[in-house]
């Protein structure tokens, strides 16, 4: 059964009034812009995007799975690495309200660079995103232990965590898988005949 929020998500339409919160920080630019004049940001005001739909009745584990995908797949490499390592460290132990904060932080801003600038404290974080999770992210970004963050971690850690929860799960999986494969072959066989 698919809730209405999925429907809304699928076919995004322009909503009348609201627009995304204006992104704060008109300070000096961080990226390479050479000697180009300042950014007027008119497009963000005149072309408002539909408001970010907050999911209120999503089960917590589905939320975690979704946020994992959304942490690993970002607009630029810096965020991909930063957020996927952050997710590895914190996602599975976050409470529901922390997950909601994180969801808003990584999904509501339209420019991925902004998240990077707030995490590195190049620009001040807008009030709506300030909170426990943002503080965790800022602290994490500082890399006080001078770890080498070479790449997004592989997903093995999830597998190890799931093994700890369900020690006999592996056998179950194999049995289940065999059953599934044979059923699929059976079902496919029927289709091929028709």
């Amino acid at each position, binding site marked *: *059964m*698919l809730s209405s929020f*999925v*429907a809304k*998500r*699928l*076919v*995004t*339409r*322009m909503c009348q009034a609201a627009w995304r919160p204006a992104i704060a920080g008109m300070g000096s*630019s*961080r990226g*390479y*812009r050479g000697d*180009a*004049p*300042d*950014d007027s940001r008119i*497009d*963000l005001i*005149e*072309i408002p*995007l539909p408001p970010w739909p907050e999911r209120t009745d999503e089960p917590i*584990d*589905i939320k975690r*799975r*979704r946020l*994992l995908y959304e942490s*690993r*797949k*970002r*607009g630029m*490499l*810096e965020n*991909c*690495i930063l957020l996927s390592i952050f997710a590895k460290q914190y996602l599975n132990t976050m409470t529901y309200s922390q997950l909601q904060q994180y969801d808003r932080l990584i999904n509501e801003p*339209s*420019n*991925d*660079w902004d998240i990077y600038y707030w995490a590195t404290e190049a620009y001040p974080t807008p009030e709506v995103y300030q909170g426990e999770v943002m503080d965790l992210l800022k602290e994490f970004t500082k*890399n006080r232990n*001078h770890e*080498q*963050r*070479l*790449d997004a971690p*592989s*997903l093995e850690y999830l597998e190890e965590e799931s093994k700890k929860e*369900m020690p006999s799960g592996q056998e179950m*999986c*194999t049995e*289940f*898988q065999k*059953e*599934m*494969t044979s*059923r*699929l072959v059976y*079902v496919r066989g029927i*289709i091929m005949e028709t």
Partner: protein
Amino acid sequence: MATVRAASRLLSKRVLSRAKAVPAAAVQGSRNFHFSIYGKKKSAKVSDDISTQYPVVDHEFDAVVVGAGGAGLRAAFGLSEAGFNTACVTKLFPTRSHTVAAQGGINAALGNMEEDDWRWHFYDTVKGSDWLGDQDAIHYMTEQAPAAVVELENFGMPFSRTEDGKIYQRAFGGQSLKYGKGGQAHRCCCVADRTGHSLLHTLYGRSLRYDTSYFVEYFALDLLMDDGVCKGVIALCMEDGSIHRIRAQNTIIATGGYGRTYFSCTSAHTSTGDGTAMVTRAGLPCQDLEFVQFHPTGIYGAGCLITEGCRGEGGILINSEGERFMERYAPNAKDLASRDVVSRSMTIEIREGRGVGPEKDHVHLQLHHLPPQQLASRLPGISETAMIFAGVDVTKEPIPVLPTVHYNMGGIPTNYKGQVIDHTNGKDKVVPGLYACGEAASASVHGANRLGANSLLDLVVFGRACALTITDLHKPGEKLTPLKPSAGEESVANLDKLRFANGSLRTSEIRLNMQKTMQNHAAVFRTGSVLKEGCDKMDDVYQSMENIKTFDRGIVWNTDLVESLELQNLLLNAVQTINAAEQRKESRGAHAREDFKDRVDEYDYSKPLEGQQKKTFDQHWRKHTLSYVDPKTGKVALKYRPVIDSSLNEQDCAHVPPAIRSY
């Protein structure tokens, strides 16, 4: 049976998926899930034809765009504006596409900073491509550039302005005036440092006003081909694991590049060549995949770009002996030599054993000899990035760097109108119903080497070109030809196979093997023997996919499954790249071979042409590579296609005959 029920209870307790894990048969014929038909304009039908395990939802549109980056959004917007019922399938939220990383700008000969002419831009691009670019497509792109930029501005993109109120344009590498004789040109239009983001935001926002349907966080699996005609795409909805067949008269592929085949690339983890792989699986060719652009300084491992501005401020490259090795390779320019010269020098140092680190596989970029205030004020971003991704304090230690994959010049071959072509019996033949634009396509405007700030231009012009071509050839509301009920079955079978794969090699291991092979054998430094070894190793990695092991058996938000699908796509791109590179026995643009250092054209352009015998098509290399792969065996077949040398209108803009490329 009891084991299965126990398993299903355990799995459903973990809520891996809302009852998807329960096989249909175990629940006595009743279905635990059902698909509601949600707010579509045409009715979406649930069909059981492929498998009861994966119910399929069918949709009908006039056009479907795969990918919502700069090119995809421009195409979707163009089509919606023209009244076509358009769908856009994307695995990411549109403003999170990789285009957002672009901070440079868009080249256009507007002539705001000095007198300019698009024909000079045309000349620069043809020369930049090392005469492998199709001049009709380059003519189209450079001529349309000013109109495209003005159009974007009218849509609401706030380009940076000069004091007079005209669009501000700045200098960028490779752009000159008066056919290379008039000095540096200033043609790059930008929106401060967020040109990419602004482009996405503007196009996405505008397209919604025209009622474009976005399928966000849907992973496109394959094209629906019927007898050589493209009839749509089949995609996996990550939200609930349902399969969607989106049928359309016109399909546009704008999925971006495939930087992730290499160990070190500046691209996000989303650049996995999904579109080029889909086209390969459909039996169609990909063009010029061996041309991969390398940027000299990307952070080792992470691959994040360290701007050339560092070296401009005084940063130097150091090898294991502490030597400033660029003095040997480029005595005058030293560390500021052109990108491909620096990349090649770094690679030679590493290959000769003077690399740094435990595996001696990178070099150092030293900045700590510069005053700390200078670092803080002029290169603030670098200090941050180095600390975050390399754990290095730039005021004390050097940054580990490596030539890093930055852009893919090759892709799906198209004509200048954006239609995908195949080459049979020596002629180009349009594939009906299929279009491509952006980095995923090869029109080919970049040829063997891309100039900076031409990529965003490419996205916008060819995204618009696809929309215009479709508007010319079709009408909204055209009846769709029938589709076989079992179309897309193989994609679902593949999905299922991957979901339950239980071999011995993890996805991450196979991916690392592929990336290391490509990095070691098909990087900047390419020699016959190294490439051949790489082709064999790549073949082994491809075969090892049979042995893949995934651990997440769910279907809802299954990141492991998506990453495995992406790995399949990456492998198809990788085998074509390395095989095409091995076959091309010359050096041209970004493809530099140590054993064949020169360009091999039909004439030797370094000498006068009279008295020279023209080489036959088989004897020279000024031609496009077309590569096909048999997905089951991983075997690559190569064909060649001539470069288009004439512009669209010789009176208006004469083509540029090949010459020796020197700057």
